[in-house]
């Protein structure tokens, strides 16, 4: 099956600034693909080129096999879009907005089922401007779904939302994905990418600098997991022989085992505790995450 979105050597320049620099990308049927990077990295420019809002200086794009330059009208019929920093008419009600937007499309999802999917039923008659940020964003996502699109483009769907609303949005996107939709989302929250995305492309200064599953990206660091615990009367040297342990460090908060295979090491650690008669307390593990990946690749924190 051909990719839902395919980009080849996309480049876009504004004056001296190369916003998107030779990006090639494939997004496959049914996946949630995350484009992750700091503000100004080129995420929005890239997504808006794919949506047909901006014309690339160089490179080729295919969306559902169609060319945005030639078949823009057909692409618009078949994609759902959540833009950043846009709005709908402030005095329109949620229900009115859905009724309006669905008229623009050939395929129309019944308004009632959308209200249900997004749990917006009790706000159906509320004016858009009166809604909380989370509800406004949910309405905007509902509007992206009115045509039952094959692919969804969500530009920073949770930026500016409080943690609770963010979690609700994650659950919602999970439900939407289960309906077989392909989703391209951008975010500068690594946690969000880790939680939601099947694959993640890390973008910085207009270039994709890494692309893999979240797990694959973390593993690519060769990152070790740290197992920290306290125990009385334990022989640190003996722990060194546990499989996959690379280092044992005795610190303030107890002993730290660095391991390349967390599961095996934990099992053997418990067996060792039984065999040598020591008690493990305050056990926790610390693993590398996408923030560490970004830090390692760029030498910077993602939010600075």
């Amino acid at each position, binding site marked *: 099956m051909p990719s839902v979105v395919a980009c080849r050597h996309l480049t876009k320049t504004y004056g001296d600034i190369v916003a998107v620099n030779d990006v090639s990308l494939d997004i496959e049927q049914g996946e949630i693909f995350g484009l992750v990077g700091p503000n100004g990295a080129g995420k929005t420019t890239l997504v808006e080129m794919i*949506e*047909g*809002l901006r014309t690339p200086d160089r490179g080729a794009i295919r969306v559902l096999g169609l060319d945005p330059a030639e078949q823009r*009208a057909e692409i*618009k*019929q078949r*994609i759902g*879009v959540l*833009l950043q*920093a*846009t*709005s*709908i*008419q*402030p*005095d*329109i009600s949620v229900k*009115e907005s859905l*009724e*309006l*937007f669905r*008229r*623009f*499309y050939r395929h129309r999802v019944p308004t009632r089922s959308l209200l249900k999917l997004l749990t917006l039923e009790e706000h159906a008659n509320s004016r858009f401007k009166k809604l909380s940020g989370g509800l406004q964003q949910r309405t905007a996502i509902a*509007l992206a779904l009115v045509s039952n699109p094959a692919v969804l483009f969500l530009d920073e769907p949770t930026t500016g939302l409080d943690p609770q609303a963010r979690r609700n949005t994650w659950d919602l996107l999970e439900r939407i994905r289960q309906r077989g939709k392909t989703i391209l989302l951008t975010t500068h929250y690594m946690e969000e990418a880790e939680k939601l995305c099947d694959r993640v492309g890390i973008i910085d200064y207009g270039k994709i600098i890494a692309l893999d599953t979240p797990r694959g990206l973390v593993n690519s660091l060769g990152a070790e997991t740290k197992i920290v615990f306290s125990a009385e009367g334990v022989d640190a040297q003996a722990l060194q022989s546990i499989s996959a342990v690379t280092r044992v460090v005795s610190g303030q908060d107890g002993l730290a085992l660095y391991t390349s295979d967390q599961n095996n090491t934990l099992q053997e650690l418990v067996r060792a505790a039984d065999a040598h008669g020591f008690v493990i307390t305050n056990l926790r593990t610390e693993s590398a995450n996408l923030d560490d990946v970004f830090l390692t690749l760029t030498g910077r924190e993602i939010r600075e």
Partner: protein
Amino acid sequence: MNAAALWQLAWVELKLNARSPELIFWVIAFPVLWMGLFGAIFNEEVEYFNVSLNQANFLLPGAIGVVICASAFIGMSSTLATYRETGVLKRLRVTPLTIPTLALAFTLSQALFITAGILMLFLVGKLAFDVKVLGSWPVLIAVCAFGMATFLALGAAIGSVAKSARAATIITLMIFMPMIFLSELWMPISLFPSWLQPICQALPLTPLVTLLRDTVFGVAMGDYWRFGLLAGWLVVGSVITVRFFRWQ
């Protein structure tokens, strides 16, 4: 052109107009109050080219002009500028809605709102002052439609040129207020200083109100150049809109 989308958008925009206290005041309430107030205070016959009608009847064409002006300058221009500034236009742009459908829907919604304002004038005028139209109704309707097209084009032009919604409001006030004063609505232009008179004559509201008044009083329209003047403003508004319209 998607007819269902056109009607739905026009209908929604009409409802949104009706939810705006500002627009309800300027397009529906103010013209009626203006005609009613001055019609009641100066309750005497007005003679216009040897035809006499009461004061409210004399003010009716100007009130229609105010309805059209307010809807175009306060409704159309600020809606357009606000929608651009807040990203509503950009959001619509990623839907299959086309520019002609969008333009027509916005125009249609204002045209329906103007129609409501004019019907209100006739309703109150008829009940309170027994206003009459001595000329031809089809001509009156045609002049109203021509005036709507011209002013909506000018409103769209301001909405397109203005950098922000605030700027659109300021430009609108700078044009709307003096024009109501200078355009033959209640004070004959001949009372103004002679240097100001040509400017008054050239303003788009003057030919519209004059043509409407000629029709209401049933006197011959001698000055067909007024149609040309309106058409000229229609072209100016349309060209500026097409040239300067931006989605974001």
